[in-house]
């Protein structure tokens, strides 16, 4: 007995049946969902008896220079099956996809991580913040163009040097 890994085609056919018009395309491993119907389709995939993808195992983003992919790995315990679902975001400046936190609570930390390192905004996330780096860190480190950002090899040099030169604020005396 081993896990049944669904191909993209299988996922696409089920997703199309559950939520018509939700699939944009599919390949051998993954099914690409349209961002505007993402949450609805995910909810359907979670609750449907055939798919039963009760757990979002992993969530991560990938930078493909011209677009971003957000990859969702779903699994079912009862049926012991596994599926890969993706969604795409094409805007490099205001990258955003809908958040799946309403569907799976486990997406909370992983969406924060993807936002922190890749700069993908998850619309509808209750508390989207940078969990590893500090707020105000210049740039998104996992983006492919992080090293070729303005300022040469030192990313965000201006901001860094500015931070270094800044005088530390005086200690506030609490009476």
């Amino acid at each position, binding site marked *: 007995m081993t896990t049944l890994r669904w191909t993209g085609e299988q996922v696409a056919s089920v997703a199309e049946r559950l939520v018509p018009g939700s699939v944009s395309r599919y390949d051998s491993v993954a099914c690409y969902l349209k961002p505007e119907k993402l949450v609805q389709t995910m909810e359907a995939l979670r609750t449907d008896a055939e798919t039963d993808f009760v757990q979002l*195992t992993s969530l991560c983003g990938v930078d493909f220079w011209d677009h971003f992919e957000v990859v969702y790995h779903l699994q079912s315990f009862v049926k012991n099956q596994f599926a890969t679902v993706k969604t795409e975001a094409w805007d490099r400046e205001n990258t955003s996809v809908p958040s799946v936190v309403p569907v799976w*609570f486990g*997406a909370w930390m992983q969406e924060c991580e993807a936002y922190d390192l890749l700069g993908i905004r998850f619309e509808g996330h209750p508390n989207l913040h940078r969990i590893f780096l500090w707020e105000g860190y210049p740039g998104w480190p996992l983006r492919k163009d992080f090293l070729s950002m303005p300022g040469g090899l030192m990313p965000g040099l201006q901001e860094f040097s500015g931070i270094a030169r800044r005088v530390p604020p005086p200690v506030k005396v609490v009476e």
Partner: protein
Amino acid sequence: MSSGGIKTEPFILNIGPQHPSTHGVFRVKATVDGERVIDAEMVMGYLHRSMEKLAEERTYTQNIPFTDRTDYLSSMSNNLGYCLAVERLAGVDVPARGNAIRVIMAEFQRLSSHSMAIGTFVNDTGAWQTPVMWSLREREYILDLFEMTSGARLTCNYMRIGGVSFDLPKEFEPAARKVLARLKPYLDEMEGMLTENEIFIVRTRNVGVLPQELAINSSASGPMLRGSGVPWDIRKAEPYCGYEKYDFEIPIGYQGDSFDRFLVRLEEMRQSVKIIEQALDGLPGGPHSTQVPLAIRPPKGEVYGRVESPRGELGYYLVSDEGPSPYRFHIRPPALINLSALRAMTVGGTIADAIVVLGSIDIVLGEVDR
């Protein structure tokens, strides 16, 4: 004050980043009302090294030592997961002896990691260092075995794409059997000392209850998930390295509290001993590794490979563009994702409970922050 009873004022208590029982540099901003925790916010990233970015610049083989340094208490399992993912991507087969050695090492790693987890967990409940010292004592013998085979104790860097880096030395098998013979009385001793210990039980029973639905929905894995009564073990569900050949069982808990997670870990150690004995008995001959080019270039594609690491499902998501280094290297860290439910488990309990819950999750900050 007149009719409302005693009016109390909540205040924020920073647990960490420097705190005896945050297992590293982890910080919980707990809003407390007296002893009661009414809100908990996690702050992490103090150990962030951007492993995923670094891995994009190095070859597939060069990335193996990075995986050691994520979860530094179970480096063998991390190596194994990464190598499995690359093998799956590149279509490399592993010889039977290599697989058996991998199973032995991964299970020894589970033993050492779980003994450490139980020790520090009991330490968090307030035992004055005794269980952690006993655990460290047994862990030392296992690390000796690692040193014997890989040359390193903590960050072993032992698995290779296509097998393992060295064959087992001649002295390994008798030494391993000796360690297993030591481990059984140790497990009985730990069990006798802790499961019959009334103080330990009242401290952990019904503390940090993770309901089954929340455990599944919050992506929990490993002992966290099994403690909540979901019999899910990747070794059984999607066997790798020939785990289907070995006879073992999955322990599951009753209601998902800290004590259940402790019981599950203890029983998993017994099962690991059982697996290692079977693997040692049926250790096949032949080569320990297949020849793989050092700068391996897997075909274009992506893969999600996963193993059951001591902390849960350890996944590696690799995207290849036919280059010598991965285009995207993502680790699914079980420790980080198990932390998702921390707030739900701690709020409503006391500060002491929050510490116990944090200990029962068994986080390793190298993996949480990467």
